[in-house]
């Protein structure tokens, strides 16, 4: 088990890594990957019961990344946890590589092929119903982007998750409040997501999505209410960790120039040096 300091160092390491592979692939969803790094770090290092060497263990916890475009954050986390050699990511987005721009089951550790938005949650509802039917105690997690919330399939799934009292289901919203066109509030307002989800019968918690202890407390202390599915609003910052990328929509899927890449690394190195 890593110490809290090691966990913080891990987040910086994952950020540097995902930038490295995006930079080399000349492709990637930079801003949204940086915003969900801390959630993935906590999930894979403190929460999920998964074994890289026995990934298909039927009793494992499930994680489905519904916001599939931010696959770079997932890939570097899986590599770091030993699901595959990190050097594999040198092929990211290259001809015939398995490491494409969205999650695919060809990669060890990936549960479902995602990428089109609004797909993760319904699949997880099915997984959660199956776990209940089989009296299994494993948990089902999915990470939603706020930009994908307007997809109707999510709201269909929100209804059925509470209908079936799926308190083994955890939907985490990476709430960076921005999407490709701009701020959520200008594209499609998500301000009242908490009230909406509570009305839909979910138990909701809000956390600072960059505070590793808060994330862990929320994710490891469910169900929040017996018989209710769990919704975690993780307030995050798009582009988190690189000053010129933070809250700047142009980094939704921007690729840094060599100078920008060096600057990003130097900022992350400075942040790393300050971690206590």
């Amino acid at each position, binding site marked *: 088990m890593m110490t809290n300091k090691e966990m913080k160092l891990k987040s910086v390491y994952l950020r540097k890594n995902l930038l490295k592979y995006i930079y080399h692939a000349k492709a990637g969803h930079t801003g949204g990957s940086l915003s969900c790094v801390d959630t993935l770090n906590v999930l894979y290092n403190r929460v999920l019961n998964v074994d890289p060497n026995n990934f298909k263990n039927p009793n494992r916890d499930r994680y489905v990344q519904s916001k599939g475009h931010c696959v770079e954050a997932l890939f570097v986390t899986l590599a770091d946890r030993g699901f595959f050699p990190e050097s594999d990511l040198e092929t990211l987005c290259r001809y015939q590589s398995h490491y494409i721009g969205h999650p695919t*089951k060809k990669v060890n550790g990936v549960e*479902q*092929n995602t*990428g089109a938005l609004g797909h993760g949650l319904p*699949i997880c*509802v*099915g997984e959660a*119903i199956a776990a209940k039917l089989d009296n299994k105690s494993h948990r089902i997690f999915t990470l939603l982007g706020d930009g994908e919330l307007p997809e109707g*399939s999510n709201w269909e799934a929100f209804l*059925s998750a509470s209908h079936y009292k799926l308190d083994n289901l955890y939907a985490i919203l990476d709430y960076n409040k921005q999407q490709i066109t701009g701020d959520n509030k200008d594209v499609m307002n998500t301000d009242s997501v908490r009230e909406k989800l509570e009305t839909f019968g979910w138990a909701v918690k809000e956390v600072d999505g960059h505070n590793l202890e808060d994330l862990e407390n929320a994710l490891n202390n469910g169900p929040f209410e017996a018989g209710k599915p769990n919704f975690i609003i993780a307030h995050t910052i798009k582009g988190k960790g690189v000053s010129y990328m933070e809250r700047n929509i142009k980094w939704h899927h921007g690729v840094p120039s060599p100078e920008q890449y060096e600057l990003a690394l130097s900022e992350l190195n400075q942040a790393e040096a300050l971690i206590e």
Partner: protein
Amino acid sequence: MELDKIEDKYLKMGEANQIVFSETLQALAETDKDIIAVTSDSRGSGKLVPFAQKYPKQIVEVGIAEQNLVGVAAGLASAGKKSFAVSPACFLSARALEQIKNDVCYSDNPVTLVGISAGVSYGALGTTHHSLHDFAALRAINNITIVAPADNFETEQAVKLAAKHDKPVYLRFGKKAMPFLSEENQTFQFGKGRVVKEGKDITLIATGETVYPAWLAAKRLEEDHNIKATVVSMHTVKPLDVKLLENLASNNSPIVTVEEHMINGGLGEACASHLFQKGFTNPFKIIGIPDEYTITGSQVEIFNHYGISEVGLYETCKTLLNLKI
């Protein structure tokens, strides 16, 4: 003769295929607790009310929400369940197309998608409720077997095979009672067309509920003109039985394909595409719904209007044979 006035002197009458589907699924569920029916407020039309009463833990209701229906079925399949997602074919194959593509086929989750009241089964309810695009839409998706059984025998076999199949399957059923076709020496496999009548002069390749009018037309050709027709139930639209297709085409006799689907992207175009690329030049006619919104009427009236009927197919065959002569 009308389709709904079946001549018992020829064939034994059965049930609607979707009733046989539900009965078969219920029989399977009795010994296999992993069988799960997922429905979108469609247990009534899917004939799953007795199933739900008998096995309440093996039915998941998602309400009228087809995207969620397919996503949930994918999740259940991913967790080891044998999930059957049951919904009217029109909505299942259109509204949830992306879920079929991504959550089921691309993710290789072995869901059985069950399209009920398919084709123009809903008759006068009109275009919103007709599924005349489902073959075309699903044929364009990788990793799915598309099956439209002709009769109760094929239906029962298809449901049993789907429950054992480890890949996605689409089953297409209608509301009309179907007669049993060719009851002796029957075998059924996905991807293998079933010859229900053998001949040498002309070939009718049909699928689903259109096999019966094709069979009747063949019978009449023989009685009136001593023309021997082969009739094939090409129940599996994908993967197509290309070996059988090439064998049928090899004597250069005319070929008529028949389907309860738009001509665009259906069985006929699939057969034509394969044969043409293989160098066959048989006289060829595709009978289906042309590129228009269907006329109002019952299934039988719509079939008659577009020549998907004993008389229509009989006339089509005669024309093709005359052209050949």
